[in-house]
């Protein structure tokens, strides 16, 4: 099966990689090895490490960083940019709609039970007006390029607490430190202003009447796998990084405990899932949240980013309907493709899925992080049969999709430079307007032939260049 290679087209170097290829040709293998060691050392010293779920030893690991950038030419980025804006606008309109008028359900575009019996739907949010009507202020949209037709597909919309943006920023910093000459030779769109855009977006949703909002970042704490990113963003924005125990609610206002006494909090960029936000309302066993937060939030005294209840729009059972949403709310044709999806809750789709398991990717509707999924072509017969049993036990818990032959990008591996599969996660900020930095996080599956790019499963990252 031919695979779309980001750098080469049937052997010839694509125009947007020419300059880089020329540069790379002049670097010795030894230089690259030395630069990679230098990058490792720097990442470790800066402490850009993550903890792996299920690894109780608490060892910190580096996300492998690859020295060869993923380069996106200007015209492709223009397409991605408009497609992403369109998609995120529609998703936010959908969220507002399902918690208010429910037009899309009444019009019969999306079945009611798909929305209202969804575990991610928050009845507490019905009729609540969030500032600017925007729910997903920060969205991380996973995009892949199909290896056969070369077209971009949206794989997943992450609208809850998408992470990875710190790696986008740190990877760029690292590349500029290691190879400054490359940046002189290329015109690469900068990304370093992302924290400014983020802060501006967060400030734009301050509760009414608050002119100088106190914005904070809420983290589950230093043992969370994304803790580095939480501290990084708080520091870059110049705001406090708080844990649940630092906050308390009084008279429906949220305060943080400071050495100078209580100080009011207006906007919380929370990096904690809905379920853990308020032990009084959701999981009583949660030590991460703030008792009473939901009431304060519903009263409009504090803003959350993202809003509560965004999960209903990025759920895999809703995903197949996003193109319909775009048509319904915006009256436009979707610019970016959806991956064809079979919903196993439908008998026909289930039958098709069962008959084609070795070719398909089967995912849990609520899963994330590459856990609990079957990649048919990479699975053994035994794994497929075990999965079949799980699928039959709860068909509605699964969707299936054709296995996309993800495009590949040259990657510096032990054996030298070889193509490895990649995806892309750009970050879309929605406040008064929709804004993005040109770029995103490119993740790369370092194992030969592997399609799983998640860092928890041995994936690495690359710097992502959008050429101007």
């Amino acid at each position: 099966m031919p695979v779309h290679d980001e750098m080469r087209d049937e052997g010839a170097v694509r125009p947007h990689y020419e300059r880089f290829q020329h540069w790379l040709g002049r670097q010795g293998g030894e230089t690259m090895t030395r630069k990679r060691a230098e990058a490792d050392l720097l990442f470790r010293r800066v402490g850009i490490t993550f903890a792996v779920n299920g690894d109780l030893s608490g060892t910190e690991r580096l996300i492998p960083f690859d020295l060869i950038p993923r380069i996106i030419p200007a015209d492709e980025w223009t397409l991605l940019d408009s497609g992403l804006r369109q998609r995120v606008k529609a998703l936010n309109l959908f969220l507002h709609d399902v918690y208010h008028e429910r037009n899309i359900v009444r019009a019969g575009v999306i079945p009611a039970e798909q929305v209202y019996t969804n575990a991610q739907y928050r009845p507490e949010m019905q009729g609540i007006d969030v500032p600017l009507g925007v729910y997903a202020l920060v969205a991380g949209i996973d995009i892949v390029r199909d290896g056969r037709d070369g077209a971009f597909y949206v794989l997943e919309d992450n609208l809850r607490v998408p992470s990875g943006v710190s790696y986008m920023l740190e990877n760029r910093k690292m590349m500029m430190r290691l190879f400054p000459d490359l940046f002189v030779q290329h015109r690469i769109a900068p990304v370093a202003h992302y924290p400014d855009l983020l802060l501006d977006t967060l400030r734009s949703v301050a509760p009414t009447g608050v002119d100088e909002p106190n914005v904070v970042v809420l983290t589950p704490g230093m043992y969370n796998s994304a803790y580095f990113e939480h501290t990084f963003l708080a520091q870059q924005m110049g705001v406090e990084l708080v844990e649940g125990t630092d906050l308390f609610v009084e008279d429906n206002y949220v305060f943080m405990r400071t050495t100078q006494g209580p100080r009011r909090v207006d906007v919380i960029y929370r990096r904690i899932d809905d379920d853990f936000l308020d032990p009084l309302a959701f999981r009583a066993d949660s030590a991460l949240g703030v008792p009473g937060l939901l009431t304060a939030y519903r009263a409009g005294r504090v803003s959350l980013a993202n809003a509560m209840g965004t999960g209903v729009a990025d759920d895999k059972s809703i995903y197949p309907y996003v193109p319909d949403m775009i048509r319904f709310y915006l009256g436009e044709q979707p610019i970016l493709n959806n991956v064809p999806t079979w919903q196993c809750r439908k008998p026909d789709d289930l039958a098709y899925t069962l008959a084609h398991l070795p070719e398909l990717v089967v995912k849990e509707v609520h899963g994330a992080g590459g856990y609990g999924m079957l990649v048919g072509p990479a699975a053994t017969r035994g794994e497929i049969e075990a999965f079949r049993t799980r699928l039959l036990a709860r068909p509605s818990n699964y969707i299936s999709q054709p296995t996309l032959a993800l495009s590949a990008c040259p990657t510096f591996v032990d054996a030298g430079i070889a193509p490895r599969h990649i995806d892309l996660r750009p970050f879309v900020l929605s406040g008064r307007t929709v804004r993005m930095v040109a770029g995103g996080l490119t993740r790369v599956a370092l194992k030969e032939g592997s399609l799983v790019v998640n860092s928890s499963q041995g994936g690495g990252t690359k710097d992502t260049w959008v050429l101007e």
Partner: protein
Amino acid sequence: MLSRTADHLFWMARYMERAENTARMLDINLKERLLPGSGDSEARGLRAMLRISELEPAFDARHKAMTRESVLNFLVADPDNPSSIYSCLLAARENARAVRGTLTTEWWETLNDTWLQFAGQLRGDELSAHPDTLFEWVKFRSHLSRGVMLGTALQDDALFFTQLGTFLERADNTARILDVRFVEVDDPDSRSAARQLEDFYYWTSILSSVSALEIYRKVYRDVVTPARVVELLILNQQMPRSLLASLDGVCTNLALLTTGTSREVERTAGKLRAELLYSDLRQIFSIGVHTFLTQFLARVYELGNQVASAYLMLPVG
């Protein structure tokens, strides 16, 4: 600033200072071995070191025999001893990690790198091969973290809480280093000539362990006597590691942090400082140096509690 952040900074600084002072104390012990003396005196020295850090029971629970190796390992590399240099550098780093957004990048990287390098040196057997180099290294990493803080950090509450931690811990640690000898006898000047000669080398090494030998020469231009060492390390306001200078640091930073709830802790600190300021040697010797230091340590401990309740404690919600 967040109370939790202040708490992490305060303890980050205390642990780093404690690591430094433990290294300093161990260095004296190492130097003492170079002098002719009985095996008896070495065992006495080791035990005094443990006693002064209030670690004797913890050590005895874990080790049958008191050898130089076992004590060294316990105080330097034992992860189960919360006061070992290993634990201190790890705790300093973990506290820093919890508030790394508050620290400047260079500051955080210094603490992180100190921990990573220290762990590497232990793995590389530096402790048994070159303990003196290792202690020197720990001391210099502490200098470095202080320097990077002063050279890069905004002069705000974060800096004041950090310095508060440093000075409070230093007051405690200098008192303990000084107390090692007085645990045994209160008036060293009254002892036999042989013991006094041994003492001469001992006090010289005490002075160099707190980087005060040259200072001593400069201040007294006279032979080293225990009484003057006591004076220098307790009462000399210009000597940066003395109890009075440490209390000056505590009071200065408390004044910069003053809030509606901090009156009591400022009073306690101010009183302790004033007593040192208007005290003299005769008074200290009449109480007995060991007794004096023991009382001092209790009051520093109490001061730490008051800092916690004034600024750091999270009210139970």
